[in-house]
């Protein structure tokens, strides 16, 4: 179990969370008509071996979506911020 320090609830086991994947790909504006932009958002991934910024939602807690910095090899967790407050 990973331990994710939720900014609202404190450290919790990761099975309280829902994973939301790569947080580094910005979502195009709702009216962005560019298929390339949407293709990139939906399909393309850096998939780094190492530091990865990713979304997790604390579904069994505060239900906030968080941006978590995690190493994909060591699984060590660095910074955790609320997605609402995160500056890309």
């Amino acid at each position, binding site marked *: 179990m990973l331990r994710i320090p939720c900014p609202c609830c404190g450290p919790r086991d990761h099975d309280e969370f829902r994973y939301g*994947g790569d947080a580094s790909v910005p979502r195009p504006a709702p009216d962005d008509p560019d298929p390339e932009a949407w293709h990139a958002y939906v399909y393309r991934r850096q998939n780094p071996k190492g530091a990865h910024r*990713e979304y997790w939602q604390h579904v069994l807690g505060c239900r906030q979506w968080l941006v978590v910095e995690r190493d*994909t090899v060591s699984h060590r967790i660095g910074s955790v911020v609320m997605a609402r407050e995160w500056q890309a």
Partner: protein
Amino acid sequence: MRNSAFNILRQGLTGNRGWPRTWRDRTPNRRYDVVIVGGGGHGLATAYYLARRHGLRNIAVLEKGHIGGGNVGRNTTVIRSNYLLPPNTQFYEHSMQLWEGLSQELNYNVMFSQRGQIVTAHSEDQLDSFAHRANVMRANGIEAEILDRAQLRRVLPYLDWSDRQRFPIWGAILQRRAGTARHDAVAWGYARAADRLGVDIIENCEVTGIRLEAGRVTGLDTTRGEIAADRVGLTVAGHTTQLCHMAGITDLPIESHVLQAFVTEPVKPLVHHVVAYGADHFYISQSDKGGLVFGGSLDGYNSFASRGNLGIVREVAEAAIALMPCIAPLRLLRHWGGIMDMTPDASPIISRTPVEGLYLNGGWCYGGFKATPASGVCFAHLLATGEDHPLAAGYRLDRFRTGHLIDEAGAGPFAWLQ
């Protein structure tokens, strides 16, 4: 020396001293016509078919560790051809047909065991969707059966048929030709056969860079020196994106995730088929040694660490005894993980890339072992001719842009995120 009962007897009587190396220990040449990166099942099969079917000889397979140390040696070895969508249906059936003659073709017993695969159904809708799948299979010349509850109960009496079953069993789909094979033997068998055709199998040789000139591949940097080649095929499974990064391709539709596998202590024969639980993520078979080999769902977050998490261990154990309470007293002997190259539609990629001379075979997700022979055939065809093999034309990289998705589960892009 050929593998045969006769040679086993002769060697047995003379101290087994005459068996040669299974594949030669080669140091790399300066240049090859084709270099395959990754000595897993797909890479070795590709090299073998390049030599066997296309007559190429100056081929190397570069493996960073030892042969078979990747997913080919970690997987749960389920082989089936019960796919719903074109081109999967025909591709996997072709693979199945290759499996049926593989031991003889390679002169190496890969222990392909067609014991049948059964997936349980837990609602009428699920039975209908299994019927659809079975109908597609039949209509494509692939045998398939639908079992009702009573029929299934006769075949698998040890499932939970009691009213304690949380998700009562309505029936099942059965493919009798499905089964398992001995994973290591597949890697070793292809390596041995490719080696006999002159392919250089080079272990402990990690590719660290891909050399490009004017958008073309010219060679590779490796831990055993520079190797020139103008055709390079990548078959590195969970490390596909890392290798592509070396060629400047940084945005593949692939994420790496860990899938765990589990084996119990060996017991006398108990599970005679491959059985999958239709209500959740769990499937199981029994190896010839007697261990129950089983698996479940992905660990659930991007990972390059080939180890699993306790949470999934528990979930899989829960699903296991929900379906088969009788295995609760049996003991888990070992569990491990492999790094999966997951694509958004959970179907593979056999494709040219934006870099000329660089070809990609990856995105096999949790289902690439069964594909090994056909993948080798199709990728060898692409590398040798520059043209898509007709069976694999649907596996091109551009399908995400055009929308020609092959989403068997209908789960949507990177559904494991949800």
